[in-house]
C-alpha cells in the first residue's frame, strides 16, 4: 500500500534532523494558522498563489530563495563546526548525517537558492526594462515557479521522512547506483531535480521568448539594458543545458528503478559518461547563474556612477562569447581522470579563454566608474565588493584550468574555496545587489541603508575569513568532504573558517534586521516617484510598485538608457506627456493552474521516491488533467478600463512632474 514507506523512515534516533524538522513544521503551522485566523487566505490565494503577474512571481521566487538560503546556510554552519571539531574524533555529526548535509547544502544552494534568486530578479525586472506589460507566457511562468517550489519541498521533506542523498551534490555513479546507495536519498535528489528542472526549463523558454519577441517600440537589440542581454544569454543556456541534466538524471533513474545499466559498473555501464554529461550541463550552469549577476552589476555600476555603461557593445559581445564558450569547457572538471595530454590541454586553454570576455567586463565596469560621480549606496558597495572578490576567484579559476596545477588541487579545499569565491562573490553578491537595488521598485519603499551597509561589510569580511583558510587548507593537501581527519596542520585553518562562518552569519542577520526595520519605517522610506536611484532604464519610468499593467503607454525608446533619455528630454520640455489619451488594457487572468499542477507533481514525486505506484498514477493523472482543463479555458484575459488606467497613471505622473520640476530648479 505505501511502497517502501514505514515508520522506520522517520529518524527517531537522530535528534538534529528531528528537532530541525519539528521547528520548521511548527513554524509553518503557526504561519498557516495566523494566515487563516487573520483572514488573509483569500488575499494570498487571489493576489499571490494564483497570480500570473511576472512581478508577483518574481517576488515569490526570491522569497523561496531567501528561505532556502537559511536552510542551506544552516547546513554550512554545521559543516564548518564539524570540520573544526572533528580532529582525531568523530565530531558531532556521524558520517551518514554529515554526508547528507554536504550533499543537501550543494543541491539547495545551487538549485533552490541561486537559481530561484536570479530567475526571480529576471522575472521581476526584465519585462519592465523592455517596456512591456508581461512575460510571453504568464501562466507557464506560474507553473515554472510552483514546480521549483515542489522540488524545494521534496528536498526538505527528506529531512524527516527518509534521508537525502549521501553522494555529493552531483550524485556520481557508481556510488549513486542502487547497489551502493540503496536508500531513498538519491531518489529524493533525482526526483526533486527532475521536477524543479522542468520548472527551470519553462522559465528559461519563457524569458528567452520574452526578450526575443516582446520589446516596446524602438527597443531594438542594441538598445536593451545589459541586464536584458545577460538574461537572454543565461536563458539560452538554460534552454540548451537543462535538457542534458534531465536526460542524465533520467538515465540514472532508469538504472535505479528498472535495472538499466547506463552508469553501473556491470553490463557495459559507463561512469565516465555520467561525468561528461553532468558537467556538460554543470559548467554552463555556473554561467547561467553568474551572467544575470553580471547584468545586475552593469546596471548598478552605471546608475551609481551617473554614467552610461562603458563599452556597451563590447559588453554585449563579451556576454554572448561567454554564452557560447561555456559549453566547450566541461572537461576541466575531471582532468585527473586520465584523458591524456592533448585533451586536457585543449580544454584547459578553452577554459582560460572564458577569462578574456570576463576580464573585459571587469575593465568596462572599471571605466564606467572612471569619470563618474559615484554614490556609495548599498547596491554599489556590493558591486565594488564583487569586482574585487570576483577577480580573486577568477585567478584561482584560471589556475585550476592549468592541468598540472589541477593535478594537485582537484577536489581539494582549494577548489571548494574557488567555487565559493565565484558563486558567493559573483552570484550571491549580485543577487544581494539586485535585491537592494530593485526592492523599492517591487515594494514601493527603500531598504534601510545603515543596516544594508552593515550587512555588506559583515558578509564581505566574513567571506574572506571563511574561505581564505580553505584555500590554505587546499594547499596543505586537504581534500573536500572529510567528515573527520587526523592531520594536525589542517586544524587551525578549520577553526578560522568556522569563525568566518560566524561573521558571515552576522551578515545574514543584519540583512534580516534590515528588512524588518525597513518594513517598520516604510512610510519614511516610501518611494513616491518610482525612481529612487536616479535610474537609467525603463523600470524606473513607472511607479513603485508598478501597476499590474506596468505601463499605461508602451514607452517609445530612442536610444540606450531609455529612461535617462526621457528624463533629459522631459527636463528640456518640462512636461512628460501632454494630456495623454488612455486606452483599455487587456491583462491575463489569474490562474491556479501552476499551483494545482505543482500540488499533483509533489504527490507524484513523493510517491515515486517511495515506490507507491497507485499514488504515482493519481498524481500523474491530476497534473495532466490540470493542463487539459487549462487548455480548455474560455476567457484568459480581462480588461482594465481606460478610466481606471488613467486614474492610476495620473497619480504617478503628478509625483513625477514634481520630481522633474524640482530637478529642473536645481
Amino acid at each position, binding site marked *: 500500500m505505501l511502497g517502501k514507506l514505514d515508520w522506520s523512515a522517520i*529518524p527517531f534516533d537522530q535528534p538534529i534532523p528531528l528537532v530541525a524538522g519539528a521547528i520548521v513544521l511548527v513554524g509553518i503551522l503557526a504561519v498557516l494558522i495566523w494566515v487563516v485566523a487573520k483572514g488573509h487566505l483569500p488575499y494570498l490565494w487571489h493576489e499571490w498563489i494564483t497570480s500570473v503577474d511576472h512581478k508577483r512571481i518574481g517576488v515569490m521566487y526570491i522569497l523561496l530563495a531567501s528561505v532556502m538560503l537559511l536552510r542551506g546556510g544552516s547546513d554550512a554552519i554545521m559543516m564548518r563546526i564539524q570540520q573544526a571539531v572533528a580532529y582525531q574524533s568523530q565530531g558531532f555529526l556521524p558520517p551518514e548525517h554529515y554526508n547528507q548535509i554536504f550533499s543537501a547544502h550543494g543541491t539547495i544552494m545551487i538549485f533552490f537558492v541561486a537559481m530561484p534568486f536570479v530567475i526571480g530578479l529576471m522575472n521581476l525586472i526584465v519585462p519592465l526594462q523592455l517596456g512591456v506589460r508581461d512575460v510571453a507566457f504568464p501562466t507557464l511562468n506560474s507553473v515554472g515557479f510552483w514546480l521549483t517550489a515542489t522540488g524545494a519541498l521534496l528536498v526538505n521533506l527528506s529531512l524527516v521522512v527518509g534521508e537525502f542523498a549521501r553522494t555529493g551534490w552531483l550524485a556520481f555513479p557508481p556510488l549513486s547506483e542502487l547497489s551502493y546507495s540503496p536508500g531513498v536519498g538519491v531518489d529524493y535528489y533525482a526526483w526533486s531535480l527532475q521536477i524543479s528542472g522542468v520548472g527551470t526549463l519553462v522559465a528559461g523558454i519563457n524569458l528567452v521568448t520574452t526578450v526575443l519577441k516582446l520589446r516596446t517600440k524602438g527597443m531594438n537589440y542594441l538598445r536593451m539594458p545589459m541586464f536584458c542581454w545577460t538574461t537572454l544569454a543565461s536563458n539560452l543556456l538554460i534552454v540548451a543545458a537543462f535538457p542534458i541534466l534531465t536526460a542524465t538524471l533520467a538515465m540514472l533513474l532508469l538504472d535505479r528503478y528498472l535495472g538499466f545499466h547506463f552508469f553501473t559498473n*556491470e553490463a557495459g555501464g559507463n561512469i565516465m559518461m555520467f561525468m561528461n554529461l553532468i558537467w556538460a550541463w554543470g559548467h554552463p550552469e555556473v554561467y547561467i547563474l553568474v551572467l544575470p549577476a553580471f547584468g545586475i552589476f552593469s546596471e548598478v555600476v552605471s546608475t551609481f556612477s551617473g554614467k552610461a555603461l562603458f563599452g556597451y557593445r563590447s559588453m554585449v559581445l563579451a556576454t554572448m562569447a561567454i554564452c557560447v564558450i561555456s559549453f566547450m569547457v566541461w572537461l576541466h572538471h575531471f582532468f585527473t581522470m*586520465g584523458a591524456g595530454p592533448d585533451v586536457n590541454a585543449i580544454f*584547459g586553454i578553452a577554459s582560460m579563454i572564458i577569462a578574456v570576455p570576463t*576580464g573585459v567586463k571587469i575593465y568596462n565596469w*572599471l571605466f564606467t566608474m572612471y569619470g563618474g560621480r559615484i554614490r556609495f549606496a548599498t547596491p554599489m558597495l556590493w558591486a565594488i565588493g564583487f569586482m574585487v572578490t570576483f577577480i580573486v576567484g577568477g585567478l584561482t579559476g584560471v589556475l585550476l584550468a592549468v592541468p598540472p596545477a589541477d*593535478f594537485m588541487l582537484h577536489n581539494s579545499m582549494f577548489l571548494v574555496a574557488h567555487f565559493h569565491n565565484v558563486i558567493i562573490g559573483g552570484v550571491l553578491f549580485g543577487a544581494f545587489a539586485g535585491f537592494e537595488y530593485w526592492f523599492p521598485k517591487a515594494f514601493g519603499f527603500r531598504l534601510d541603508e545603515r543596516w544594508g551597509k552593515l550587512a555588506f561589510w559583515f558578509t564581505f569580511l566574513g567571506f574572506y575569513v571563511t574561505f581564505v583558510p580553505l584555500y590554505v587548507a587546499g594547499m596543505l*593537501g586537504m581534500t573536500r568532504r572529510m567528515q573527520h581527519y587526523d592531520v594536525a596542520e589542517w586544524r587551525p585553518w578549520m577553526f578560522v573558517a568556522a569563525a568566518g562562518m560566524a561573521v558571515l552569519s552576522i551578515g545574514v542577520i543584519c540583512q534580516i534586521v534590515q528588512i524588518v526595520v525597513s518594513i517598520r519605517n516604510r512610510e519614511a522610506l516610501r518611494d513616491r516617484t518610482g525612481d529612487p536611484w536616479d535610474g537609467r532604464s525603463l523600470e524606473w519610468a513607472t511607479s513603485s510598485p508598478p501597476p499590474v499593467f506596468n505601463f499605461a503607454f508602451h514607452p517609445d525608446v530612442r536610444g540606450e538608457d531609455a529612461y535617462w533619455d526621457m528624463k533629459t528630454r522631459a527636463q528640456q520640455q518640462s512636461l512628460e506627456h501632454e494630456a495623454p489619451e488612455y486606452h483599455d488594457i487587456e491583462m491575463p487572468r489569474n490562474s491556479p493552474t501552476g499551483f494545482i499542477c505543482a500540488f499533483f507533481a509533489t504527490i507524484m514525486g513523493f510517491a515515486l521516491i517511495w515506490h507507491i505506484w497507485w499514488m504515482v498514477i493519481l498524481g500523474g493523472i491530476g497534473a495532466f488533467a490540470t493542463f487539459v482543463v487549462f487548455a480548455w479555458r474560455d476567457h484568459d484575459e480581462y480588461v482594465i478600463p481606460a478610466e481606471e488606467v488613467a486614474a492610476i497613471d495620473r497619480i504617478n505622473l503628478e509625483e513625477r512632474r514634481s520630481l522633474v520640476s524640482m530637478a529642473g530648479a536645481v
Partner: protein
Amino acid sequence: MNLLDPQGPVAAANSTILVDSVFIMLAIVVPTIIAILGFAFWFRASNPKARFQPDFVYSGRVEMVVWAIPALTVILLGGVAWIGSHQLDPAAPVPGTGSPVRIQAVSLDWKWLFIYPDQRIATINTLTVPAGAELNFQLTSSSVMNVFFIPQLGSMIYTMNGMVTRLNLRADNEGKLKGLSAHFSGDGFPDMMFDVNVISPLAFPDWVAATAKTDAVLNEDSYKKLMQQGIEKNRLTFRLDDPRLFDLIATQHIPPGPGPELLSDAGRPHSGAHDAR
C-alpha cells in the same frame, strides 16, 4: 602535506607551474584591484576635484587595451598549460635510479590495497617505496570511484572499476608521507588516508623479504573479504598468491564490491563505517 614542499620531481614540477601561474596572473590582478578601489575612491560624488565625464562611454583605444590584456595573459598561460599537460601527463615516464617498482593500487570500500606483483606481496593502507626509483602505478577500483593522491609526490588520478589508469611518480627523499583518496566514496571515505614510507633503496629488498614472510595470503577469497565495506585500522600485509590478481579485478573477473548490507528496507541503509569504530 604541504603542496609547496614537494618530495619528488612530479610534485616539484606541478607546484612550480602552480606558483608561476599565480604570479603571472597577479601581475595584472593586483593593478586591476588597485585601480578598482582607486577609481571608486577618487570619483566619489563628494570629491570636487574629480572631473565628471558623463560622456566617456566609449574609447577604441581603451577597448583595444582591455581586450588585449586578458588575451595576452591567456596566451601566455595557455602555453604553460599546453607544455605542462604534455610534460606532466600522469602516464609520462619519470626516470629514476635503479629498476622501476611496479605497484598496482586498488581502492576498496574504504581502504587502499597496494599490490607489488614483482615482489609477490601486498599491503593495506601502507605504501612502502624505495627513494629515487621510478614508481609505475596501475590503478583500479573494486567498486566506486576514488582518486589516488599523495600530495607531496604529485599528480592525482582517478580509480574506476573495470578500468586501469596509469601514473608514474618518484620519491626523492626518505621519510614518511601521507596519501589520501581525493574523491568522495561513501561513509568510510575519510579513513582512506594511507601512510607512505619512503625508505632507502638498500633497505627496500629487506622490507620486501620481511613482508613476504607474513602468514596472510592474498588470493581471490581473502580479497573478497577485504572488499566488504568497512574501515581497516590495522596495517595488514600479505603474500601475493597469484600475480594476476590485479588483472582479474580490473577486468571484472572478480565482480565489483557488494556495497552496504541491507538490514532493513526502509529508506535508511545500515552504515558500515559507523560500526567499524
